C-alpha cells in the first residue's frame, strides 16, 4: 500500500485498502481451512484403516515389549485428537517430522521425490497439450467426419487401456525390441553418480553441468514414461478442446468473421481457439496437477522414484508423517495451479477483469 492510500483524507482509497485486506484475510483463512481440512481428513482416514505402523517399524518378529515401545515412540498410544493437534502444531513450526520407512526427515524425502515427478509431469503435459490441442481442434473442424472419429477413438483408447499394461508394452517394443529409448529408471548406472543433483530434475541438472551425454541419457529415459503420461492427458485434453471448439465455432462472431472473408485458418486458430483457450486453461491446469500427484502405476513400471510411489508406499505402511507431508505438498500444488489458472483467466478473458 502506498502512503497516500493510508491517508484519511482519501476515503475511497481507504475503502480499497480495507477491501483488499479483507479479501486477502478471507483468502488466507480459506487457505488455512483448506489445509486443515486436508490434513484432518488424511489423518483420520489413515488412522481408521487397519494398519499398524509399529509393525512396519519393528517387523513381525519383534517381541511384544519392543512393539509397545515403538507405539509409544510414535505417539500411537495417545488419543487421536492429541496426535492430530500435536502434528498440526509441529507443522506450524515448520517441521514435517520424519518418515519411519526411510529414516529421513519427510521434507528431505519430498525434496528428493518431487523433482522426479515434476520432471515427468511437465514433460507429460507438454506432450499432452502439444498433441491434444491440435487434435481437438482438427476434430472440431472436421466434426462428424473421419478425423473426428479418429480423435474420439484415440481419446477412448487413452481413457480405457490400463496405463500399467500400456507401459509394459511400450517398454517391450521401444526399449527391449527396437532399442529406441532407454529402459526403466532415470539414468544409466554409468551416469548415476557423475551428475550433480541441484534441482533434482535431471534434464536441468545435466544441462547446467554441461554434461550433454548424460542429458541425452536422461532424455532417453524420460521419453517413454512422459510420452505415456502425455498420451493419457492428450486423450482428455483433445476431448475437451474438441467440445470447447465446437461450442465456439457455432457462435455468431465466427459467422461474422467468415462472412468478412477471413481465411478459415485465421478464423479457427486465431478467433475460435483464443476464446476456447479460456476454459481449456483450467482443464490443462488440472491435468497438470493430476500428473504432479505422481502416477503410482507409471512410476512402478518405470522404476521412477517419484512422489506417487512414495505416498502410496507410506500409506500402505501407515507412515503418517510421510503421507501427511505428501498430502500437504499435493494440496499446495492444486491450490497454486488453481490460483495460477485464475490469474491467467483474467489475462485471457477481458470480461473477467474488474472495470
Amino acid at each position, binding site marked *: 500500500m502506498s502512503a497516500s492510500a493510508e491517508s484519511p483524507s482519501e476515503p475511497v482509497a481507504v475503502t480499497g485498502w480495507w477491501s483488499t485486506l479483507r479479501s486477502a484475510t478471507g483468502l488466507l483463512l480459506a487457505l488455512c481451512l483448506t489445509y486443515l481440512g486436508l490434513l484432518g481428513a488424511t489423518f483420520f482416514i489413515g488412522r481408521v484403516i487397519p494398519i499398524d505402523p509399529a509393525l512396519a517399524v519393528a517387523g513381525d518378529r519383534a517381541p*511384544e515389549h519392543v512393539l509397545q515401545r515403538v507405539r509409544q515412540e510414535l505417539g500411537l498410544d495417545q488419543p487421536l485428537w492429541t496426535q492430530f493437534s500435536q502434528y498440526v502444531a509441529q507443522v506450524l513450526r515448520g517441521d514435517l517430522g520424519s518418515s519411519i520407512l526411510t529414516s*529421513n526427515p519427510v521434507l528431505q524425502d519430498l525434496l528428493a521425490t518431487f523433482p522426479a515427478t515434476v520432471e515427468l509431469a511437465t514433460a507429460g503435459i507438454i506432450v499432452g497439450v502439444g498433441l491434444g490441442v491440435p487434435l481437438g481442434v482438427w476434430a472440431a473442424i472436421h466434426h462428424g467426419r473421419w478425423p473426428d472419429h479418429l480423435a474420439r477413438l484415440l481419446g477412448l483408447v487413452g481413457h480405457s487401456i490400463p496405463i500399467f*499394461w500400456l507401459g509394459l508394452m511400450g*517398454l517391450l517394443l521401444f526399449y527391449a525390441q527396437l532399442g529406441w529409448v532407454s529402459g526403466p529408471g532415470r539414468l544409466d548406472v554409468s551416469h548415476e553418480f557423475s551428475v550433480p543433483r541441484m534441482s533434482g530434475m535431471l534434464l536441468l541438472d545435466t544441462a547446467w553441468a554441461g554434461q550433454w551425454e548424460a542429458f541425452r541419457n536422461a532424455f532417453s529415459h524420460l521419453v517413454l514414461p512422459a510420452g505415456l503420461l502425455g498420451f493419457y492427458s492428450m486423450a482428455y485434453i483433445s476431448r475437451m478442446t474438441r467440445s470447447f471448439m465446437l461450442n465456439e465455432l457455432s457462435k455468431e462472431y465466427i459467422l461474422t468473421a467468415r462472412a468478412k472473408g477471413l481465411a478459415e485458418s485465421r478464423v479457427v486458430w486465431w478467433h475460435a481457439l483464443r476464446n476456447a483457450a479460456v476454459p481449456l486453461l483450467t482443464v490443462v491446469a488440472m491435468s497438470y496437477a493430476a500428473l504432479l500427484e505422481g502416477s503410482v502405476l507409471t512410476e512402478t513400471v518405470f522404476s521412477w*522414484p517419484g512422489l506417487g510411489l512414495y505416498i502410496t508406499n507410506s500409506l*500402505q505402511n501407515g507412515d503418517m508423517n510421510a503421507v501427511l507431508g505428501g498430502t500437504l505438498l499435493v494440496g499446495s500444488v492444486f491450490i497454486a495451479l488453481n490460483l495460477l489458472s485464475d490469474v491467467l483467466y483474467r489475462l485471457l478473458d477481458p470480461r473477467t477483469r474488474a472495470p
Partner: protein
Amino acid sequence: MSPFYSPLNRRELLSMGIAWAGVGASDAWAATPKDTLVLAQALDDMITLDPAESFEISTGEIMGNTYDRLLRVDPSNPANLVGDLARSWSVSTEGRIFRFDLKPQLRFASGNPLDAEDVVFSLHRAVLLDKSPAFILAQLGLKKDSVRQRVLQTGPLSLSIEIDRDLAPSLVYNCLTANVASVVDRRLLLSKESNADLGHGWLRTHYAGSGPLKILQWRANELVALERNDNHHSSKAPLARVIVRHVKESTTQRLLLQKGDIDVARNLSPQDLDAVRTNPELKLASARRGELMYLAMNQRNPNLAKAEVREALKWLIDYDVIGQTLVRNIAEVHQTFLPAGVLGSSAQRPYRLDVAKARALLAQAGLSQGFKLTIDMRTVQPYQAITEALQQSLRQVGIALEVMPSDGKQALIRYRARQHDLYLGSWGMDYWDPHTNADAFARNLDNSDAAATKSLAWRNGWQVPEFSRRVEAAVMERDASRRTRLYQDLQGDFLRVSPFAILFQLVEVAAMRAHVEGLLIGPTSESTHLFNVRKR
C-alpha cells in the same frame, strides 16, 4: 515384506501375457560398467541401515556384505561356521563362558583400528538399543541390565561372553553370525552420538563397518551403492562397485536383464524365470533358503481343534502339483519345520493329496456333511493361486472356504490377533539355528491373550506344554549329535499333530548375465555374497 516377486496383482494376467510375448524380445547388449555389478531388486522393505535395528530381507543382504562379525555361516556348508573377525574361539568346560580371539591388525573402512573394544561395544550397543533383533542376543542372557558384566574385553584382541543358563554352544555361535551381532566402528559412532543414542540416529542412514564392501549411499526406494573396502582384512573385492537398483516389477527386472542394463535380477516370477532358462546369454544361481511357506489352523475354531480335521487338511493339499506349477523355480516341497541345510533338519514327507483319506478322517470327526472356514490371504502371488488351489480341494470334501483377501499387513494384523481360521503365510529363520523355528512353531506355555511371548503356536491358540518342554531340552543339549536327534524326533511328532501344514521351503534365485561369476547365494540373507563377483 514379501519374499516373493510382487506383480501388481490385478494386472497379473496381463503381465503373464507380456511374459510370454517377451520371449522373442531382442537381446541387444548394453553393457554395464566393467568394474561395477548392477543388480535389480525390490528394496522397498529397507527402513534402516543400522545392523542393530535392521531385520528386513534386503537389508540383511546388504549388512552381510558390508559388516563383519565374529563368525559366519559357511555358505558352502551351512551347518559349519567359519571365523570372520575371530581367529579362534572356545567354550569353557562348564559351557557358560565363550572366549574369542580376534585376527590381528583389523581396520574399519573409515581407517580406524578394529579391536576387542569395538566388538564388545557393538554387542553392548545392540543389547542396549533393544531394537527388534535384540532378542537374538537377549535369549543368551545378554540383557540391558547385565550385558556390561557378561560381555567383557579380556585383552587388546580378546573378549569373553558369559551366558546365563545352559545352552547348546552351537546356538550361541549361530546367534553371533546374525546381523545384530555385526561389529560397528566405535570411534566413528561415538563422534556422531546425540542424546546418548550410541550413534543410532546417524547410523540409520550411514555406514560404520569393516566388511568387504562399504555402503556409499542409500537413496530410499531408488538404490543402494556399495564400494570396495580396501581396508578389509581378507578378501579384496574384484569389482570396484556394486549398485543395487530398486525395481519392483518382475517383468521390468527381466527386460533390464535381457538388455544388459543390469547384471543380476533378484525377484523374478516363475514365468520370468522360465524365460531366463531358455536364453543362452543368461544363467541362474539358486540356493534353498531358511524360509518356509505354511498353512496355519487356528485352534480357537472348534472344528480345527479336532485332531482328525487338522490331519485331514494336511491330506487335502496338492503339494506336488502346486510345487511344479505355481511355485516352480522359487520353492520346493518341504513338510517339516526345520528347512533343509540347518542342523537337525528332516526330509520326512508323509503327506500328499489324498481326498479319500481326508474324507474318512472328517467322517471320524463327525463332519462328513462338511463345514465352513475362512482363510486370510495376502493379495500377492503365489499366495493367491495357492489359496485358489486349496479352495478347490477343500470343496471336494464339503468344506466351503471363504477367502478374506487383504494387503499383507492387514492379514498379518488379523493373524497376530488370532482372528483367522486358516492363514497362509511364510516364516523365515531369524538366525541360522534350529531353535528359532522350534521356538516359533512348537513352544507356547502361556496361551492367554496377555502372554509375553506370542509365538506362531500362540497365534494359533495351540497350547503345548509337552512340546514346549522338548524345545527347551533341545536348546540346552550340548552334544551336537544328540541335539540333532532331539530336533528330528520333535519334528516327526509335530508333523502328525500340529495345527501347521508346512508346504514349501523357498528357493532364493538370482538370474544373471552369463559373464557374471562368483555370485554366491546363501541360505540366509546375510550369507548371500556379492563381494566375490567378477565379470568376464
